[in-house]
């Protein structure tokens, strides 16, 4: 598996708080990596460094052979990396279709007709063909997040980042979003997913990465990590999550 993301010695601080403490992470092309860990462990910060929504202090990040750093090359990297947010972050003044169609027009130079047609197909793919002309506030949380996924897909990214995509959803809507992600995982796109959905992680992940205190503590195939956790912190974390 060719590596498509290479993060080496990443350090990120917020004031005096060290969010990422010399983290290394390599993700292979087409790999599904699920990042788990207690809140404040740095997992969101880690994936937000990949597309530079957070700027790391030191260390290097390579995405698809390109160095990730501030400057001219960053737009090209971001165009290859789609992101799905915990709070959806849909554009409230645009319809679902416009949300999906916008970036390909502005960044890839597609015509509106072409982009709208593709956006309609993407909305159909996430089961929202009949909601294309609705505004975000007319959609449920689960529907909004599926629009968010379609919007990220519209740029035809090589890598998809999911930052706790189901954490802001009512429980009955989590399934519809995970279903869409499950289908995506079978398409061969590279996915890095921060989530608390352990069942989902076990089902789709090629590798699970456990973070604590700004470090990668343990990683491996889900079966190994969930069934035979070695690190006591991982054991404590899994106990806390699975025992209620």
């Amino acid at each position, binding site marked *: 598996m060719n590596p498509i993301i290479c993060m080496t010695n990443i350090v990120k601080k917020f004031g005096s708080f060290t969010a990422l403490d010399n983290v290394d992470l390599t993700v292979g092309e087409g790999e599904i990596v699920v990042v788990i860990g207690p809140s404040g462990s740095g997992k969101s910060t880690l994936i937000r460094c990949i597309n530079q929504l957070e700027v790391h202090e030191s260390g290097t990040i390579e995405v698809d052979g390109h160095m990730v750093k501030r400057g001219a090359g960053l*737009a090209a990297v*971001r165009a290859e990396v789609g992101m799905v*947010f915990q709070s959806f*972050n849909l554009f409230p*003044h645009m319809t679902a279709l416009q949300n999906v169609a*916008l*970036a390909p027009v502005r960044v890839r130079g597609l015509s509106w007709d072409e982009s709208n047609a593709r956006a309609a197909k993407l909305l159909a793919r996430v089961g929202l063909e009949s909601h294309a002309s609705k505004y975000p506030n007319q959609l449920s949380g689960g529907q909004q997040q599926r629009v968010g996924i379609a919007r990220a897909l519209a740029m035809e990214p090589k890598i998809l980042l999911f930052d706790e995509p189901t954490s802001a959803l009512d429980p009955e809507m989590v399934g519809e979003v995970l279903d869409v992600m499950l289908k995506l995982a079978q398409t061969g796109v590279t996915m890095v997913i921060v989530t608390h959905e352990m069942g989902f992680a076990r089902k789709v992940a090629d590798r699970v990465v456990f973070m604590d205190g700004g470090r990668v503590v343990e990683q491996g195939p889900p079966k190994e990590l969930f069934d035979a956790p070695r690190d006591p912190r991982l054991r404590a974390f899994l106990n806390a999550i699975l025992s209620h």
Partner: protein
Amino acid sequence: MSIFDTFLNWDVFVRVLPLLLSGLWVTFTLGILAIILGLAGGLLLALLRLYSPTPVRQITIAFIDVFRAIPILVLLVVVYYALPFMGLRLSPFAAAASSLSFVSAAYSAEIFRAGIQAVAKGQFEAARALSLSPFRTMTDVILPQAIRVVIPPITSNAINVMKDTALASVVAMPDLLKQATQAQALTANPTPLIGAAVIYLIILLPLVRLVALLEKRMSAGNR
């Protein structure tokens, strides 16, 4: 003489009406021009204040502060009576238009800035993650949301500009107020002044109501 002969003299009013209307036209032209220039300038200042490198940002802040602090009447008198000594002689209209525009731009800048800062951080992040350019992020994502929020205060500011046009009469610009005072001198009767006041009210009262309505609609909080 009855109060009608003195303050509400119909004959006098009809006689001076053409004069008042020509003044109204000047007031309108000046007001609309200053509002448009103020909006454009205000948006530019707001963006400079938020996103330009430090030296430019500080100059922008100083500019905004000065024009928010100075009384418009003082600015107008300085521009019209003092600048000629530096070789810059402006017509009454140009002096009034530039003074009003600068002050309006300074106030609008603060309103736009508040509007842009009120847009959720996640909107900027989503735009960045999609690789939209800073320009497109502003025009497609941020400003449409920011402008929606600031429509009531911006309209309120436009009303102030319209009202402040009356100050231009001190530099002999033939606006509504100036024409009314001249008509008063001509007819030796205050009816033209009352007429002018009524015309100001007819134009501005609906706008004041509009702002109240807009504010109510915003606070009703659709989104």
